[in-house]
């Protein structure tokens, strides 16, 4: 049933005719109810009119904000009229109260001009009134509202002991008497007071300004918030610590109600807001001036409102950020079985595609760092191995972009077995020879990207990326949320500020308009296509690929068709909880790109700066490896990892079959565990009926097998072949290579343990730590040290 037929069937379904008896029953019941209600209503109306209870109920009703709908209209009408009367009385009371409060101040203000003019006229004979009122006068003028706002003025003035009598005199109705009193007391120091009051006032003003400047009180008025791209920001602002949504102080609403109708939000740094909490209560200076500003709608330049975005980000990255409760296990990974042990007699050839992705390692690291063992399917051993850079000898030229290094060593976890390392290191394009890049960043800005490890981290990562690009490279930005839009047309990196500005303006949750995200990104990349250069889309997402094409297969097909045109796609994964690793992998593979998982800024640094060349510049496409084992010397073999990269034997020579790509300077390492013929520790017993292993073809008795690598140069569609035998006795290799063989063995062991350790015998985390420590080398970026820490964490991590 599809939706059409579902709708049609809903329409088609018609109710059977109602039973007349039921109809009658219903009608009778309803009529009875009707009679009852109306009779009761009339009864109630009469009761209200008569009984002594009525006034009370009436008063209650009258004070309600809404009409009592349960009573009948005609009765409530009478009360409605009477309610107006109550409301009138209440209103008069409120107005009266208000006048009583405001009156003294009004009085004061009327006398001010007189006082001032008198003082100007004759400075020497300044009247005490004016001297006493002086502190208030200038302040009430410019800083406070045109309308009188009594409280902030006296508080913020608060220059000395004169304050108290002044306030008292202002409050009393007979101001004249009070003034006379003050006159008598302060007769002798009249001018001095005038001066000191003035300077004290100026001092306090300066102090409050300085306090403001120091505190860097950032202000956003309500209007700014309404202009923020989304309600989310406003909400997040209110939740973030250090952000106070300030309405007029609660203790003064009745006095300031008239003037303070504007709400404001004061944003301070999280620490500062705590530090200021006390001064806010004690010293009224900052607050007084702020509310004063609200009233007069004058904003001093000392505290310009910063753009709301900055504040939002600051809120997020603030120390007070509370990590959301992670929803575990919703991240999606492709399920796969560990490669089994294979008999050389049955299946002598093993074929797989190169994999330079490292996402699995980052994800595992993240899980372990939070004290949890990762999901088994999130552990892809080859990605863990390939996370590290190994000292395999590099190729000499871009023509033959890599040469294989094969090392045979004893297996640390299987007695009598051997490990065959196949390492390739891609030719490293020097920075100056790197082709020009046309990058389009496709960023997910949906609301789910708002946590600090998502969009903010993505933006920071992109900023890092800019530093590893050449000035002539171009960067465009497309975002998608509900809809999609171009944020920045491709801009040369030399125009860095513009790109940074566009990046920093990105807000999670903001809706954008335009065509669909990924299509838009490709359009943009096509429009600025760089022949002979790198044309690549970098997709940053937390897993929601609602980029316009809904079906996964369609999306893959789309990416694949564009790849043929020369536009590649890399995927950078962010966040946790909803990460769709499987899809990220599939897209990156179809788009000839890498899939990396960025969990920290350090990882961004590794992927986008140190290995920027590897991430951006492909030196060989569709790299496939095939190993044919020699049945005369090898009984069993097992490929460690690469489960998701397995190819069929016939795919190797078929250039139409896509495979992994190797970037500039990438190292790819594959490890086979083999059991030589004659070893005691075969997994599978030899067949009783089959014939003995065939004698070696002449001249190959010293080989375990034969390695073939196929690859295409980046601008070519025909593959080239590299061949090399795997010798039982390895050629001499450097000490560094041997050390890295040991390290990659440790990583492989760790990966297999995390996946359940089917083939690792008695290997324990402690053994891995020892091995890895031993083979750390100089480790310039500390990645290997981190690995050792990670294994330590795994020993104490809990099962999911």
């Amino acid at each position, binding site marked *: *049933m*599809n*939706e059409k*037929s*579902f*709708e049609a*069937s*809903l*329409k*088609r*379904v*018609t*109710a*059977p005719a*109602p*039973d007349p008896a*039921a*109809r009658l*029953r*219903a*009608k009778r*019941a*309803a*009529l009875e*109810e*009707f*009679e009852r*209600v*109306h009779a009761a*209503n009339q009864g109630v109306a009469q009761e209200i009119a008569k009984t002594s209870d009525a006034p009370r109920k009436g008063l209650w009703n009258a004070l309600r904000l809404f009409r009592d*709908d349960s009573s*009948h*209209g005609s009765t409530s009408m009478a009360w409605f009229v009477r309610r107006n009367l109550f409301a009138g009385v209440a209103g008069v009371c409120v107005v009266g109260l208000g006048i009583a409060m405001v009156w003294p101040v009004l009085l004061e203000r009327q006398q001010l001009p007189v006082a001032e003019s008198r003082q100007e006229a004759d400075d020497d004979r300044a009247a005490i009134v004016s001297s006493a009122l002086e502190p208030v006068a200038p302040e009430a003028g410019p800083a406070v509202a045109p309308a009188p706002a009594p409280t902030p003025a006296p508080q913020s003035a608060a220059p000395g002991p004169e304050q108290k009598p002044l306030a008292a005199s202002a409050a009393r109705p007979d101001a004249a008497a009070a003034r006379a009193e003050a006159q008598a007391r302060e007769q002798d120091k009249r001018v001095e007071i005038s001066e000191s009051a003035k300077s004290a006032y100026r001092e306090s003003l300066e102090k409050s300004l300085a306090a403001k400047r120091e505190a860097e009180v950032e202000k956003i008025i309500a209007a700014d918030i309404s202009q923020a791209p989304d309600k989310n920001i406003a909400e997040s602002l209110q939740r973030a610590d250090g952000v106070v949504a300030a309405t007029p102080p609660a203790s003064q609403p009745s006095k300031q109600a008239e003037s303070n109708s504007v709400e404001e939000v004061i944003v301070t740094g999280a620490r500062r807001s705590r530090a200021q909490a006390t001064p806010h209560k004690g010293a009224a200076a900052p607050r007084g001036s702020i509310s004063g500003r609200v009233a007069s709608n004058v904003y001093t330049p000392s505290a310009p409102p910063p753009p709301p975005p900055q504040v939002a980000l600051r809120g997020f990255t603030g120390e007070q950020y509370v990590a959301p409760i992670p929803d575990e296990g919703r991240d999606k990974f492709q399920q796969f079985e560990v490669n089994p042990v294979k008999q050389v007699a049955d299946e002598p050839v093993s074929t797989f595609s190169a994999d330079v992705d490292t996402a699995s390692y980052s994800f595992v690291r993240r899980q372990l760092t939070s004290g949890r063992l990762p999901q088994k399917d999130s552990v892809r051993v080859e990605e863990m191995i390939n996370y590290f850079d190994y000292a395999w000898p590099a190729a000499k030229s871009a023509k033959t972009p890599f040469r294989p290094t094969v090392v045979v060593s004893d297996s640390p976890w299987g007695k009598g077995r051997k490990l065959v390392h196949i390492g390739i290191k891609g030719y490293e394009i020097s920075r100056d020879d790197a082709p020009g890049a046309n990058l389009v960043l496709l960023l997910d800005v949906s609301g789910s990207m708002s946590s600090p490890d998502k969009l903010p981290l993505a933006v920071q990562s992109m900023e890092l990326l800019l530093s590893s690009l050449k000035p002539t490279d171009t960067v465009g930005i497309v975002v998608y949320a509900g809809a999609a839009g171009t944020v920045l047309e491709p801009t040369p990196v030399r125009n860095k500020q513009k790109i940074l500005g566009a990046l920093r303006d990105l807000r999670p949750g903001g809706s954008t308009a335009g065509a669909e995200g990924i299509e838009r990104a490709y359009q943009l990349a096509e429009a600025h296509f760089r022949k002979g250069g790198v044309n690549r889309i970098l997709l940053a997402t937390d897993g929601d690929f609602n980029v316009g094409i809904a079906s996964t297969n369609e999306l893959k097909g789309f990416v694949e068709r564009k790849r043929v045109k020369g536009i590649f796609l890399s995927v950078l994964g962010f966040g946790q909880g909803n990460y769709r690793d499987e899809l990220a992998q599939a897209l990156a593979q179809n788009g000839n790109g890498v899939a990396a998982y960025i969990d920290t800024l350090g990882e961004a640094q590794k992927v986008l700066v140190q290995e920027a060349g590897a991430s951006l510049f492909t030196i060989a496409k569709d790299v496939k490896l095939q190993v044919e084992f020699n049945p005369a010397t090898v009984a069993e073999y097992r490929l460690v990892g690469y489960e998701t990269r397995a190819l069929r034997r016939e795919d190797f020579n078929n250039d139409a079959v896509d495979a992994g790509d190797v970037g500039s300077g990438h190292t790819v390492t594959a490890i086979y565990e083999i059991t030589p013929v004659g070893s005691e520790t075969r997994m599978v017993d030899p067949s009783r009926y089959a014939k003995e292993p065939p004698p070696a073809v002449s001249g190959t008795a010293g080989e375990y097998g034969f390695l073939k690598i196929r690859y295409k140069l980046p601008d070519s569609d025909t593959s080239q072949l590299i061949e090399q035998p795997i010798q039982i006795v390895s050629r001499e290799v450097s000490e560094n290579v041997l050390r890295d063989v040991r390290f990659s063995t440790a990583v492989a062991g760790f990966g297999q343990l995390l996946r359940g350790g089917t083939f690792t015998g008695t290997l324990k985390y402690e053994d891995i730590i020892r091995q890895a420590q031993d083979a750390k080398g100089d480790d310039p970026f500390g990645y290997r040290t981190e690995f050792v820490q990670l294994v330590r964490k795994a020993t104490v991590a809990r099962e999911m």
Partner: protein
Amino acid sequence: MDEALIRRAQGGDAKSFAELLDLHYDTIYRFAWKWCGHQANAEDIAQQACMKLATSLSQYRFQAAFTSWLYRLVISCAQDWQRTQQRHDHDELPDEESMTDSPRHEDGIFLAQVLAQLAELGEGMKETALLVHAEGMSHAEAGAVLGVSESTISWRVHTIRKHMGRPAARASLAYE
């Protein structure tokens, strides 16, 4: 003509109210039946709705169409009814016996299945589907009845379509 009738009924005229009931009983009953797919239950709900109409007719303010108001009333009655049912008998399955005596029992079974699925989709989904698909209301009208915005209805309809188009949803419907 409806308005005059309603005003008279609001004023307490029992005869007008009876007339009003006659006019609208069928609408109420039909909708109640679609709600539960069961005749006896529909009659119950319809009776409850009629009684509620008697008590709350005075609250009708002529702001929305009377039928929209009526739908809302029936929906709230149906929801109340369902709650009381759930409280009394938790696991009573649809009464197959009583359904067979209806000539349209197949329709009823099918409807019950669809409605159960819709109810699982979330609050308001069932009502939305009934109003939009079965009653043929526009999204705006349905929004007015349910007291939500038009876009909410559109979203719900979209969700329902998506769900109903899924193979899982199709497979779990035995009928068809």
